[in-house]
């Protein structure tokens, strides 16, 4: 299944690894922060509603 990459296998594979890694970090960080902020906002809104 693995294609023949010849003598450039190292750079090709590492460039895929680096790029996919960076994208994964970016997506992961975005999703994590989205979850955190959403939860925090809900908590605050809940508290304010109860306070009223």
């Amino acid at each position, binding site marked *: 299944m693995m*294609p023949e990459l010849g003598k450039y296998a190292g750079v090709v594979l590492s*460039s895929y690894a680096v790029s996919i890694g960076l994208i994964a970090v970016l997506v992961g960080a975005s999703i994590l922060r989205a979850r955190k902020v959403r939860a925090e*906002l809900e908590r605050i809104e809940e508290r304010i509603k109860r306070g009223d």
Partner: protein
Amino acid sequence: MSIWEYANPVKFIRTTDKILPWVSIAAVVCLVGGLVWGFFFTPADYRQGSTVKIFYLHVPSALMAINAWMMMLVASLIWIVRRHHVSALAARAAAPVGAVMTLIALATGALWGQPMWGTWWAWDPRLTSFLILFLFYLGYMALWSAIENDDTAADLTSILCLVGSVFALLSRYAVNFWNQGLHQGASMSLDAEENVADVFWYPALVCIAGFVLLFIALVFLRTQTEIRARRARALLARERAA
């Protein structure tokens, strides 16, 4: 809801919530499809060998690096003219995505250059202007996070984005001028899509679509996050004031 005077942000979140899953799925499909197609099912170029496969990452990320800045520029203009909060927050949300795209373009460019030019880094005009673009992204993000007041930060960063665009463009041409003649043919096939064979072109097109969709999905998600974070701050401030 209207007490927060953020009618538009609410609408924005409601609309994007509906679109976001579809865009994300499309982005994943295009990215996985395009990259798998490019990586496993295309032949190696007769001249560049298998390094041609790097372009499925390099070209889309480089495109998005520039387009992200353009989007920030437009969003900043909208903020300055219309004072539309979502716009400023969208510009803020796009900046890290653009910076990562620039980083990917730089990294893959360096990895490609190693076997092709025999060096990790050449002061090629194109590479150099991307490095400068990356610096502009860093400065922009640093300014956002340095200022506490949201509106002040939005104003200052959008002006910075405008001025920075002019200087980034200027640097692009200055850099061209600066290194002209040192190694002329260095950027040979970086954007020669016209003479790229269809075997390479179609998967590249799918990858570009994937990167565009990924960018849209990320900007939607991150803008929602910024809106929520801002609202949480506003609520806390209101609570403290009361």
